[in-house]
């Protein structure tokens, strides 16, 4: 109890000392909190996107097979389906027809895709809510497409997909196979790529190797690789994230370095006076410990909470211009938080601990020398 009272008294003194230099310390806490806010926002955002990819793309096809011509994708002949289907372990092979369409009226890119299961009538389309939001011809209920022979076809909008599907289907336009071939002049007997269902997932690497051996111009992509892609592309220690984070950490490093390289003359005099009136070196270290904790912990908690609100309530409004880029269609998605102890503890140990330690070290040097020398210096 006595120890607790002593700590409270030291904390009282620390807060008074910080308050005496309130201009400097409020600025310090604000900048510090902003650094934590930036880092935490990136970590929360990338974690949420990765989490969403892990949960949703687990339903993706077991394997996709593309055909490459001169290093680029090309249509794949439907005759390849027979060759692949004959490989032991392949349950079924389906062809996919999909492609990109640039709409000149609103400068948006759409992904056009054929789905036979949905039984879409010729001349009709199902559109993602992102497409619907940007349509200029919404009221007419039809969308013009310029085909690859220069003519125009008008497709009737049958249904707009639910906004909850934005994260996977904001820019999708689903249509009939005949209409797709008419727009893109895709030859009969060709598809964009093939998707496979495999009986035993452990056999997928073997099947992929067999496909490449039988059809050397193809490239299989396994579901595991889809998941690894999102794991890697939204890795918070890679890509642009590392640029944002390195800027923040450099700012923090300067802050900590400034603290660690020495105390101001006023702070030294304060330590000298405290020692002169009977404070022990250990008391001064405790004082500086509480000072470090008060600044860094306040900034950490403020930055962490603000980052959470920023990413999951606003959603990530500060990053929106960077994420949106040149996209005209931008999915409106509510990210689901994917908090982990690892992320929060990493942030804590990267921000609070170094600052607190760098506050104590120079104080220990000043507190361990004669108070008379410190005060005269």
């Amino acid at each position, binding site marked *: 109890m006595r120890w607790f009272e002593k700590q409270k008294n030291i904390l009282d003194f620390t807060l008074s000392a910080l308050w005496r230099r309130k201009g400097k310390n409020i600025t310090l806490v604000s900048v510090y909190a902003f650094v934590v806010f930036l880092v935490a926002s990136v970590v929360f955002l990338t974690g949420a996107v990765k989490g969403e990819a892990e949960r949703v793309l687990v339903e*993706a096809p077991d394997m996709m097979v593309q055909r490459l011509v001169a290093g680029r994708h090309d249509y794949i002949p439907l005759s390849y389906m027979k060759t692949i289907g004959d490989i032991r372990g392949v349950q079924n092979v389906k062809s996919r027809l999909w492609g990109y369409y640039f709409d000149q009226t609103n400068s948006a890119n759409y992904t056009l895709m054929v789905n036979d299961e949905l039984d879409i009538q010729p001349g009709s389309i199902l559109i993602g809510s992102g497409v619907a939001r940007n349509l200029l011809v919404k009221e007419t209920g039809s969308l013009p497409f310029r085909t690859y022979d220069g003519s125009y076809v008008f497709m009737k909008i049958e249904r707009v997909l639910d906004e909850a599907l934005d994260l*996977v289907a904001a820019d999708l336009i689903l249509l009939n196979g005949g209409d797709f071939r008419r727009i893109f002049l895709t030859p009969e007997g060709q598809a964009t790529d093939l998707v496979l269902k495999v009986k035993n997932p452990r056999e997928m*690497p073997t099947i992929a190797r067999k496909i490449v051996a039988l059809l050397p111009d193809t490239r299989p992509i396994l579901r595991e690789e889809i998941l690894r892609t999102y794991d890697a592309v939204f890795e918070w220690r890679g890509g642009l994230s590392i640029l944002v984070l390195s800027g923040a950490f450099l700012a923090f490093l300067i802050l900590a370095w400034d603290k660690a390289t020495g105390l101001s003359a006023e702070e030294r005099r304060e330590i000298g006076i405290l020692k002169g009136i009977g404070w022990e070196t250990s008391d001064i270290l405790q004082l500086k410990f509480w000072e470090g904790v008060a600044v860094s912990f306040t900034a950490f908690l403020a930055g962490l909470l603000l980052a959470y609100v920023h990413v*999951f309530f606003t959603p990530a409004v500060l990053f929106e211009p960077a994420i949106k*880029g040149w996209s005209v269609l931008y999915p409106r998605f509510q990210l689901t938080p994917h908090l982990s102890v690892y992320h929060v503890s990493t942030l804590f140990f990267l921000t609070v601990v170094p600052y607190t330690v760098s506050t104590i070290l120079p104080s220990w040097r000043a507190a361990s020398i004669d108070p008379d020398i410190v005060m005269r210096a």
Partner: protein
Amino acid sequence: MRKCNVFLVCMVIALMGVVLMVVHSSVLKASEKVRRDARGDWVAKLGLSDLCLFTDARYTRHPVMADVHTPFQDYPLAFEHFPSGSIIGVPPHLRGERSW
């Protein structure tokens, strides 16, 4: 009220904020399950391979399906034509890290 008590009360409130953050994330995760399952169903039904995050370039709309020779997509810090290409890294299977 003593300064230390004010500070400690503020810290307790902020820590409660962190606890609320964790609770909120779990509640949201549970309530989002229906919408997430719907997204999963459509991914299965349409055979989708990618999330619709960026629609400006084809290699950022479908990073999984991108080919190695897409312009500017050389390494994460390369000069990029599309801003979204700077945000995401290169898929591992395009760097030759295949799982088979």
